[in-house]
């Protein structure tokens, strides 16, 4: 991925700093740069109003006890490819999100690469 001159820009919606830090640590190796951050559903909805600032979104299902479904709806509305990060089983998501990639916590570099590949149609699978 190092040869890719134009990294993919990502919005990360995560309420825990350490998990955000982990993603910021792992994503650059996979050709993804975190260019926008939100720590609440409202913040994510606000970010969805300027979708030109990022290419993809990684959204934690649980944001300080609240579910991020509305924010993901807003992101999908803005045509931003979005994946879920969750500590719950993937089966617990509402049916309307059935086609979205899910990254289960805890995740390794390979898991992250696979989820990104599913999100971007395979362009990150080689990482």
């Amino acid at each position, binding site marked *: 991925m190092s040869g890719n001159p134009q990294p993919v820009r990502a919005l990360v919606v995560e309420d825990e700093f350490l998990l955000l*830090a*982990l993603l910021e*640590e792992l994503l650059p190796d996979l050709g993804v740069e975190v260019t926008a951050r939100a720590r609440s559903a409202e913040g994510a909805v606000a970010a969805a109003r300027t979708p030109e600032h990022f290419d993809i979104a990684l959204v934690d299902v649980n944001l300080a006890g609240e579910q991020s479904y509305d924010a993901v709806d807003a992101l999908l509305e803005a045509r931003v490819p979005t994946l879920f990060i969750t*500590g*719950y089983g993937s089966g617990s998501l509402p049916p309307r999100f059935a086609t979205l990639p899910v990254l289960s*916590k*805890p995740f390794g570099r*390979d898991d992250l690469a696979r989820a990104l590949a599913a999100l971007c149609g395979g362009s990150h699978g080689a990482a």
Partner: protein
Amino acid sequence: MDTTPAPAAGCGPAEALLESTPDLACLFDRQHRCIYANRALLEALGRPRAEVIGRSLLELGYAPRDAAMHGSEIDQVFATARRLRGDARFHGPRGERIHDYILAPVLAADGSVQAVAATIRDVTERTAHEDVARRNERRLRAIASASSSVIYRLDPDWSRVQVLVGPGVENPPPLSRLELQAEHLHPDDHARVAHAVARAREETTVFEAEYRWLRGDGRYHWLASRVVPVRGDDGRVHEWVGATTDVEDRRRQETHQRLLLDELNHRVKNTLAVVQSIAVQTFARTGADRQAVERFHARLLALAKGHELLTASRWNGTWLRDVVETAIGPGMGHGLERFLIDGPRVWLAPRPSLALSMALHELCTNAVKYGALSAPGGTVAIRWEVHEEGGPPRRLRLEWRESGGPAVVEPQRRGFGTRLVEQGLRHDLDGEVVLAFEASGVSCHIDVPLVEASTA
């Protein structure tokens, strides 16, 4: 009626009736003397007619108290010309009997009372049956109310249902089962219940189901029902009897517990992810060995995936094959095509499940780095059997065998991974482990007792 004492052999139809009825019959005069007795009465008293006619109640063997009571009853009929009914215990040659009797006036042409006619029915057996029946009935009701269930019967074809014991009216009429269901049964449960009913009727077996039912409070409650066939002496099903209990509270607690467990699992996974992040941040900043960081990652993930398998079964246990495929699966960079996996279905309790997850992960990591999976053509065979000899507990024997890899060199010192395999299983599962670094490939024999887990 003729009031003169009758001869033994009657002449008219009335006499014939009196002599042939099993009921006891007699006439009393004002002095409480018996002036007529039928055959049944003589048999009950165990005396010939000559020892009965003209005798008073006392002389006939009645206890003084009973004789006095019946005497005053006879007086009452003479005085009022009205019949009366009673029941009393009578001690005769056949032991204690229970008599149900009617005393009726015999009227003369001028309307005066000439004699008192007594007809007496021996109800000893009937009373005993009734006592037993009543006792059984009471006992049944006590059982039903103690169980807090509604008890009901169903026609053989399940068309109508009638509540036998439960809150509400006594002896309610039978109701159409299908109409009740249409009104009360949750729409989503119709198909399931219909299927269970059809099966129970077809196989004449116990019906068991839990379903949602619209109750008086306007809400659907979860109910649990059991219905059993009741066969007659001819072996045919004459009716079905069922019991239904409201299990709403239990179901709600189960749901609550499930939510709590889900939440706990979520937190555990989140915490593992946080630990992972701390490790990454810590090691990356200190310039630590990148390989060591990767290994730490991999072990943490193996632990998390082992947990996830158990979470799926709500920590009841796992299938061994799932443990194997998860431990060697994604993240190792190799598909299942490099593995030969063979063994019967074995259910593992949580502890052996996790211990084997970690051990298999270490073996796999080693194979990828140095062993069969480090070379293009290398393969790993994982086979297991269950042995029953020597009685319980059964033992699981699992073999890990690598082949087609580079020549194996015994490592100079045992690393953490090796210790996890050899000592971990020994310690956690009281098992035996033989890890061999043969030139042709690494092999590992694992022999552990199988503690039976609940296969919920």
